[in-house]
């Protein structure tokens, strides 16, 4: 295996010291990506030629002293649900096969303007619906720590690509934990910013009131660099936050003195969580205390209703968003249909996978006459109560810490037969989406050789505090430096 890819900061330093070039780095990433396809399958498509051409341009810029940003000339991967002009995007679905985007998503435009180089698109659960990257028309991605296990999902390809040191960073999207849970399973850092912090324009919609684009990297400091490139107001997304995004790198002081960390008591009970995971998280909390943080117990009284609330809202919004895939404007169309309705039905039945169909059907049911109030409106009301829980908790603390997932990476096929068990693995992550608050996962230990993630949540608009905590944690621990055997 070729040399493992370092962090964005290491690569930046090597470029600035003229020890390497963008062309060399990008070439190495592409070679590693191709070499790992059979074992890990992190990618659904690589843009080798374009990436190398862009790397040449970045090298030329650097030669002229025109460096656009800290990530100029550095490689990155994007999830297969954000579009880029002239490139395919199919959301790991048959229904979008062959789609070539006529425009670029705002997040990817941010990367381009910063000079970062997109080397390829990563695998995911179809339309981001899943927690294991098994629901992909291209086949599953495997966890670099143990190929018999899933990388988590739905942004499993992005997490696996960073964990296997194929790319230093990747974009993902997080609707109920789709960045944080795979970050936890793969032993990398993954951050979901505040809802509206990164524009959703050009992100294929799953659940519009929950979807948010975020970043994966080996370190919190690298995530800060990527966020700086993609965050900020976008007039093309009406839910985009008007305030300018902070300069995240500037707050990474390593100092936690005076910081109040809230431990939600509902999340620190033995029931439903792996004992080793809970021990690793408690250990991490003790280390944060030694670094100067004070802990305080808080309560999120509606926490146990989060999964039910989430799946009612997410499925309802998904059923509405996915109505656009009808065989008229893009993607797959069933052949030989006699009328329009038959064409719609056959196209959608052939084009969507089983999990997507199941969610569309549940969502349609929740929104249908007679059930709307009992399910959708009810869930929206409980969502208000959940938001209130967090507002209350943040009056007593600056950030919350919890496990990211109740368990370490599970085996491929282990949960596909029982959807409720699969859904319950999102227990700690969905609340941040329902409340719209920022949350990240950072590696905090191992159970049976598999990574454990520590989740850090901040109040709305405050990505800086979770990043500062994770960065401080990484200065006193080395869990984030561990990389899977195959990537060494």
């Amino acid at each position, binding site marked *: 295996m070729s040399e493992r890819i370092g962090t964005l900061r290491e690569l930046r330093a090597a470029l600035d010291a003229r020890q390497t070039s963008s062309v060399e780095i990008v070439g190495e990433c592409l070679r590693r990506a191709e070499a790992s396809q059979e074992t890990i399958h992190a990618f659904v498509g690589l843009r080798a030629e374009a990436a190398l051409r862009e790397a040449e341009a970045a090298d030329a810029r650097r030669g002229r002293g025109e460096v656009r940003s800290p990530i100029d000339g550095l490689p990155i991967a994007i999830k297969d649900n954000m579009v880029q002009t002239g490139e395919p995007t199919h959301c790991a679905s048959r229904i979008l096969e062959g789609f070539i985007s006529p425009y670029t998503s705002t997040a990817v435009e941010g990367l381009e303007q910063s000079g970062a180089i997109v080397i390829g698109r990563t695998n995911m659960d179809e339309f981001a619906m899943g927690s294991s990257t098994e629901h992909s028309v291209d086949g599953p991605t495997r966890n670099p720590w143990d190929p018999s296990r899933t990388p988590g999902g739905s942004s499993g390809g992005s997490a696996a690509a960073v964990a296997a040191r194929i790319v230093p960073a990747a974009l993902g999207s997080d609707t109920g934990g789709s960045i944080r849970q795979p970050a936890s399973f793969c032993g990398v850092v993954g951050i979901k910013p505040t809802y509206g912090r990164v524009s959703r324009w050009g992100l294929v919609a799953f659940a519009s009131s929950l979807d948010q684009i975020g970043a994966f990297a080996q370190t919190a400091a690298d995530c800060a660099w990527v966020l700086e490139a993609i965050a900020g107001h976008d007039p093309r997304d009406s839910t985009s936050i008007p305030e300018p995004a902070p300069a995240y790198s500037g707050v990474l002081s390593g100092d936690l003195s005076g910081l109040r960390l809230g431990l939600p008591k509902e999340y620190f009970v033995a029931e439903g969580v792996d004992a080793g995971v809970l021990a690793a998280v408690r250990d991490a909390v003790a280390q944060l205390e030694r670094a100067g943080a004070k802990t305080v117990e808080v309560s999120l009284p509606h926490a146990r*209703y989060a999964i039910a609330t989430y799946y009612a809202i997410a499925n309802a919004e998904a059923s509405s968003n996915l109505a656009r895939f009808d065989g008229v*404007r893009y993607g797959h169309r069933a052949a030989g249909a006699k009328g329009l309705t038959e064409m719609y039905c056959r196209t959608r039945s052939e084009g969507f996978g089983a999990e997507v169909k199941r969610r569309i059907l549940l969502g349609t049911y929740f929104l249908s006459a007679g059930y709307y109030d009992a399910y959708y409106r009810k869930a929206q009301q409980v969502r208000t109560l959940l938001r209130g829980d967090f507002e209350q908790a943040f009056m007593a603390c600056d950030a919350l810490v919890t496990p990211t997932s109740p368990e370490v990476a599970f085996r491929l096929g282990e949960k596909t037969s029982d959807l409720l068990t699969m859904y319950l693995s999102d227990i700690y992550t969905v609340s941040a989406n329902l409340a*719209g608050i920022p949350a990240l996962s950072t590696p905090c230990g191992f159970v049976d050789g598999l990574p454990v993630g520590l989740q850090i949540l901040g109040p*709305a608009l405050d990505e800086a505090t979770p990043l500062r905590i994770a960065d401080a944690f990484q200065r006193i621990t080395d869990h984030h430096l561990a990389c899977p055997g195959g990537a060494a």
Partner: protein
Amino acid sequence: MARINRSEVERVASLARLSLSEEEADRLVREFESFLGYIDTLQEIDTAGVVPTAHPISLPTPTRPDEPEAAMDADRAVANAPEAAASAFLVPKVIDTEAEG
């Protein structure tokens, strides 16, 4: 809470423009049962008078000056269509002549 049966699943499938095989429909009845049983825990909570949340971050509806700007070229906009002609999407016959007849 109303329980689900085969005809209910088929009604929802037709609303969603999905056709299901016998096997799929049977499996979905079981999955709906289990899932709705779980979602029903929400009914335990008293939400009388609680304002529903449609979006987590409250923002005023943004407005912008109503100024014309360049739109995507029509040929480019239909380039991904399974069937297109003269910058327009082509679809199968919309009106069923038999039903009309």
